[in-house]
């Protein structure tokens, strides 16, 4: 079978599996729809959380980003895993004891205020839509390259599948589907990484191959370490050394911090810890989630290094002077068609050549423009792996995009049906009606997400900074203070959320949209980029909240008692309305 047919078969089988699981586990009540009935085993929940967390961006783009930026890419690796420590130690067990369905639920009740709840709902919905736009682009990329249908058709297929199991199954359907999707995506990610590790270093475990010596053509240790080789090649081609990076220390510090804190403040991640039966399970479930996430995240930098060496050697050839275009490998030509690789034969020698500098810059010798997104998707082709591995990677990319989209859609639909309608606008609706509204909201959410997939906004990459910045500067401090300070009152929390939010949003909007050409280190506040400013926003939020709460009315007694009661596990019921 050729690659194309194999891809259809493997992707088709994986879709059939997801739909089958959805039918088997469909939700009958709002509780099953919102929190899967609160009865999910912690290991299962950890695996589903991992699939929810590892988006199309993690699967498709992350290794590419690390591959092109070396040490600088560490901010994502540490940021997107370190947040789980905060979640497990400072949030998950207490929110589980609190025992409601959503993050706005907690903010609204802890700060005894509809205004606080509304701010939290708006943050939650905005963060989720930001994210979904990116997922749908991922679906589009995978479909357009591997199934050779146009991107629009690909997005429609993806929408239909997600619609089916998210709308029908709610959290219950999503959780069990995500377990299957985790298996597909981790298998698809590990297989090429293991292949490459064995080929290049002789080690089966990529995390060990990452630090090992490269093998020479005869299969013996060459005496040159992989990372040493990368640093040498980078120097020859005019790049910064791979293991050093080029960002300033304060910027690396703030971006890592904003991503960690932002991760711990993302509503679709937090809500996961409402679905386990006990407080004890919420603690350990975060640990399992991080185990499953780290399997991939520790492989990412290894794969990034392997592919970079491989890619440079393939393009520049053994003599490092370039390879004639006619004899260049097929993947270069097939990715050229998608526009993700560009070649401009600037010196007219008919050879492809890759080095530092922009392709548009006549002074640079670089003739190639290579998009981050292709590193993972093209790796099996670059390394000449068997056709089924290529098909598997396509299925893995789709699993990553679909699982994350479904989790986000659920938060959107819950925010609308539960936080806006039930708790705000129409408090008297029945469970059945609420469930219906939740499904309608999920349906509308999918249509909007699909719109973004068909007409991808050019600012997807820019708005990701937004999602984390806003989560870090608004929701995270409000939740932390809600648990660890009994005296934090509603005035303080609302003032903190609003100043943190406005400062962070203002800074990002200014540099990303108002004055994008001025988005350089010299103009930044203390040298902190828009990606890292959420860290400063968070500090502002804490400071403003502390000040305001001192000069305004004390927290009511019943709220202080509630805070005391969430601090220990005994007496935690199931997640419930009352």
């Amino acid at each position: 079978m050729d690659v194309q047919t194999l891809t259809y078969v493997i992707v088709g089988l994986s879709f059939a599996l997801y739909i089958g699981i959805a039918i088997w586990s469909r939700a009958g009540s709002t509780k099953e729809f919102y929190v899967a009935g609160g009865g999910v085993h912690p290991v299962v929940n950890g695996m589903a959380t991992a699939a929810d967390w590892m988006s199309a961006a993690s699967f498709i783009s992350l290794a590419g980003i690390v591959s092109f930026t070396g040490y600088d890419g560490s901010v994502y690796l540490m940021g997107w895993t370190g947040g789980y420590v905060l979640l497990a130690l400072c949030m998950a067990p207490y929110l589980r004891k609190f025992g409601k369905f959503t993050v706005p639920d907690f903010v609204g009740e802890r700060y005894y205020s509809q205004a606080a709840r509304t701010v939290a709902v708006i943050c939650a919905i905005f963060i989720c839509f930001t994210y979904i736009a990116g997922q749908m682009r991922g679906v589009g990329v995978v479909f357009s390259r591997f199934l050779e249908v146009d991107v629009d058709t690909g997005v429609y297929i993806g929408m239909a599948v997600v619609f089916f199991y998210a709308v029908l199954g709610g959290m219950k359907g999503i959780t069990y589907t995500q377990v299957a999707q985790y298996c597909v995506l981790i298998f698809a990610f590990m297989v090429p990484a293991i292949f490459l590790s064995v080929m290049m270093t002789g080690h089966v475990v990529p995390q060990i191959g990452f630090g090992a010596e490269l093998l020479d053509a005869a299969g013996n240790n060459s005496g040159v370490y992989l990372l040493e080789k990368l640093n040498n090649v980078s120097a020859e081609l005019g790049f910064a050394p791979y293991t050093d990076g080029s960002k300033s220390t304060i910027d690396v510090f703030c971006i890592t911090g904003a991503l960690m804190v932002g991760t711990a403040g993302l509503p679709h991640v937090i809500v996961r810890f409402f679905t386990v039966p006990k407080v004890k399970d919420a603690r350990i479930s975060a640990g399992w989630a991080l185990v499953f996430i780290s399997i991939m995240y520790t492989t990412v930098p290894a794969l990034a290094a392997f592919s970079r060496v491989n890619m440079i050697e393939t393009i520049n050839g053994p003599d490092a002077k370039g390879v004639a275009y006619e004899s260049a490998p097929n993947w270069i030509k097939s990715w050229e068609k998608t526009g993700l690789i560009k070649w401009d034969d600037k010196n007219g020698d008919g050879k492809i050549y890759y080095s530092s500098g922009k392709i548009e810059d006549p002074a640079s010798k670089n003739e190639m423009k290579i998009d981050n997104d292709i590193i993972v998707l093209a790796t099996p082709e670059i390394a000449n792996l068997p056709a089924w591995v290529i098909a598997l990677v396509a299925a893995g990319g789709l699993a990553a995009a679909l699982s994350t989209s479904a989790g986000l859609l659920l938060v959107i639909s819950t925010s609308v049906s539960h936080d806006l309608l039930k708790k705000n606008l129409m408090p008297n609706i029945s469970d059945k009606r609420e469930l219906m509204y939740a499904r309608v909201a999920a349906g509308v959410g999918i249509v909007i997400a699909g719109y973004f997939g068909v007409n991808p906004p050019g600012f997807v990459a820019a708005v990701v900074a937004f999602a984390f910045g806003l989560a870090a500067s608004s929701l995270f401090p409000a939740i932390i203070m809600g648990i660890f300070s009994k005296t934090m009152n509603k005035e303080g929390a609302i003032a903190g959320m609003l100043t943190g939010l406005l400062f962070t949003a203002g800074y990002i909007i200014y540099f990303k949209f108002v004055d994008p050409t001025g988005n350089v280190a010299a103009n930044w506040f203390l040298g902190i980029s828009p990606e890292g400013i959420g860290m400063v926003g968070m500090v502002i939020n804490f400071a403003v909240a502390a000040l305001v709460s001192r000069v305004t009315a004390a927290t009511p007694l019943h709220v202080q008692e509630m805070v005391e009661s969430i601090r220990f596990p005994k007496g935690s019921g199931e997640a419930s309305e009352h």
Partner: protein
Amino acid sequence: MGFENNDKAKRYWSENIRLVLSLLAIWAVVSFGCGILLVDVLNEVHFMGFKLGFWFAQQGSMYVFVALIFVYAAKANALDKKYNVQED
């Protein structure tokens, strides 16, 4: 209420805070410390084919994160038992 008296509730909470803060200190040292602020110093040291600072940033910190959560879960569960506030 879950505690026998107020004093116990206070002691439980301060032991819990001490546990969380000490684990968060390790969390900060391996990531912000070894992986970022001290990365250049640690890069002088070689470890299993890696520069040590780079290893912390792209591998080591994540292994430590996983361990921290499991240690926390075990210790917090033990603390619950000590004060008899575990779930039924």
